[in-house]
């Protein structure tokens, strides 16, 4: 399956994301999930960034938190709400909000 996962938290009490398997897996970081793309906790980037190469972060949610594109890990593409709509309809038949 093609699965697009919205990651909306930095720390989460659910471990579901670690278990998900998909033929094509995409992570769309929104809300406090964006910190996965900007923080290097103890000098290391978030392990989620190693799970797939399809990585996106919502521009408005970066800026809201005082972050800039320069803070975002190079592997992650910065996208708008409009881009997210296209990802939903063109790339991911199933969606998850975690």
């Amino acid at each position, binding site marked *: 399956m093609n699965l697009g996962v919205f990651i909306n938290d930095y720390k989460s009490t659910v*471990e*579901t994301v670690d*278990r998900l*398997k998909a033929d094509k897996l995409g992570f769309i970081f929104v809300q406090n999930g964006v910190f996965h793309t900007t923080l290097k906790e103890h000098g290391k980037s978030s392990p989620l960034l190693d799970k797939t190469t399809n990585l996106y972060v919502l521009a408005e949610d970066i800026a809201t938190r005082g972050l800039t594109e320069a803070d975002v890990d190079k592997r992650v593409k910065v996208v708008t709400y409009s881009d997210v709509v296209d990802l939903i309809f063109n790339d991911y038949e*199933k969606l998850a909000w975690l």
Partner: protein
Amino acid sequence: MSNVTCAFIIQRPPYKSETSTLGFTHAISWQVVEMLLDEGQNVVPTVCFVGEGVLNLYTNQKAMENYGVTSIESHGKNSLLVDLDMLVCKEDLERFGIPEDRLLDAEDMGADKKLQIVPYAEIQKAMESCKHLLFF
């Protein structure tokens, strides 16, 4: 006859946020969805319990007695009664040390269905074979 299948994944503990209760009630509503659809159409949820979600399934919950609200157990029983498939992650039950005989059942209400305790791989399969995923 054309059914749309959905996997409802319940992954949060009971009685904290309303989330797991809403997962059950939304799934149970499949019973009446035909009213709003054309002949032969239906939406069929499979309810899956993973992580802390399995903590919703204890039998003998006293929510009505203590807090005046319908217990989640009662929602679970109703879910079985309306013939929902309910898959419970075996690994997570084992991890938390919850024996099967502590889990809810709707035999007393005459339900044919029972909780199905399955390896996580089965839940993954349910997610793959459904059309839509809803995480609660």
